[in-house]
């Protein structure tokens, strides 16, 4: 089988022409770095993505704190992750790097704060 993948690892966005059989990658062409091959392999077996969203904040200078995942999670768990993160409300002050949910849904990825919000 042949398929063209757009690598999302970095802004180069390499167009990778990959030949594969089942989950096994036979050849890749067009990637500027070895991460491209890893990406294609991962896409075939278990496509993963990170997400970024926000959580509510009380008592702060802003109503929302942005958060992101520290590691990619399976694509088909993204909406489960959004529901889980949506339950959270934080109290100011909060800082970049604060862990909001460790090991989200047992997927090995933490939800961390990406914005400093002082007390109002």
């Amino acid at each position, binding site marked *: 089988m042949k398929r063209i993948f757009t690598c*999302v690892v970095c802004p180069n*966005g390499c167009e990778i022409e990959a030949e594969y059989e089942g989950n096994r990658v036979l050849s890749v062409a067009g990637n500027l770095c070895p991460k491209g091959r890893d990406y294609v392999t991962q896409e075939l077996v278990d496509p993963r993505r990170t997400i970024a969203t926000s959580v509510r904040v009380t008592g702060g200078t802003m109503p929302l704190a942005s958060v992101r995942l520290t590691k990619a999670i399976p694509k088909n768990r993204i909406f489960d992750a959004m529901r889980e993160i949506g339950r959270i409300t934080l109290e100011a002050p909060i800082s970049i790097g604060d862990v909001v949910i460790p090991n989200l849904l047992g997927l090995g990825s933490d939800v961390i704060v990406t914005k400093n919000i002082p007390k109002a």
Partner: protein
Amino acid sequence: MTHVQAIVVGGGPAGLAAALRLREKGIEDILILERETLAGGILRQCIHDGFGLTRFGESLSGPEYAQRFIDRVAQEGIRCVADTTVLDISSDKTVTAVSRKRGLMQFQADAVLLTMGCRERTRGALAVPGTRPSGIYTAGVAQNYINLQNIMVGRETVIMGSGDIGLIMARRLTLEGAHVKGVYEVLPYPSGLPRNIEQCLNDYGIPLYLSHTVTEIRGRERLESVVVAQCDERFEPIAGTEEEIPCDTLILSVGLIPENELSLAAGVALDARTRGAFVDEHCQTNVPGVFAAGNVLHVHDLVDFVSLEAEQMAESAAEYLNAGSLPACCLEVKAGADIGHVIPQRISGTRDFTLSLRVRKPMRNVTLVLAQKDRTVKRVRLRKALPAEMIQLTVRKADLCEDADLEVYVE
């Protein structure tokens, strides 16, 4: 009137990086003027990750990327005055600003660094016919509402234009439970980066319709539907292809325009192609001592390159402040076949410089050529060249001569 060595207009990514580099180069007296309450510019609302891969070797969100610069500016004790709007810059580098707290202020600067960023094209610029209901937002405004103010903009959404912010918002709206019915792009190719088409549209099953545009907006109080149609190669809607799409929200992602009202007031000449200043290899405009970098100069795809360009500008500005002038740039850089624009537009031929450019149309397996008269300066083979992706390359002084304009073209 207060004298200041260097005034940086705008505390976004370009302004912060420029101020820091000025300080590193020994400039003591620096003042950043920021219109918003907090520094960081547009990064404050760009909560998605992917920033800083070039700069820091890791994937950060916009606010994290900005905070690294904000922290260093604070550590260095560089003055950043927020809630302050610059009203005017004159060609003799008098900067007039106003804030609620301090009232009207005037500064006499030795150098002015323009880092105001860009703004979005609106419905008015496109003249989309129809009614004027609520529910129509530019992508950046929708991003501000959702990511900063906790206000959801709508449920049934159509996106007009395939710029990167529109693609990012297609994903964001989907994650927040809205239904994005499709992205309609008038060009026969996407305006945004390929990786954003993949991770923002394809990942969520959002269709992209190329050579399509919105031809009518319907609804009284709130948007009720839009009419879309296929377009021909002259971007004219094709009769008979119209389709009405019920929706309550229309997001516009139809291009960014460098914010140059203040530059014009200072007498800075603008390039009709970039809609930013004409600059030389020092990022200096036609007004001596007035410099420009980042999205106010030309719209970038990635903040990492905004920071880099702003730092290069600051190095030149520091040299200008220390030496009183910069080497003359008498050679023109000309955008030739299939090249949309080039930055800088003038060079000296005596120094290394970074050339930034965009191609006019998507191409594959082409050679980019830099030539002076009949002499080839540089040849670069490109597997793909897309208008959505800015191309940057370093040109070495050893490869340049000092007596001929530089032509850039696709062979």
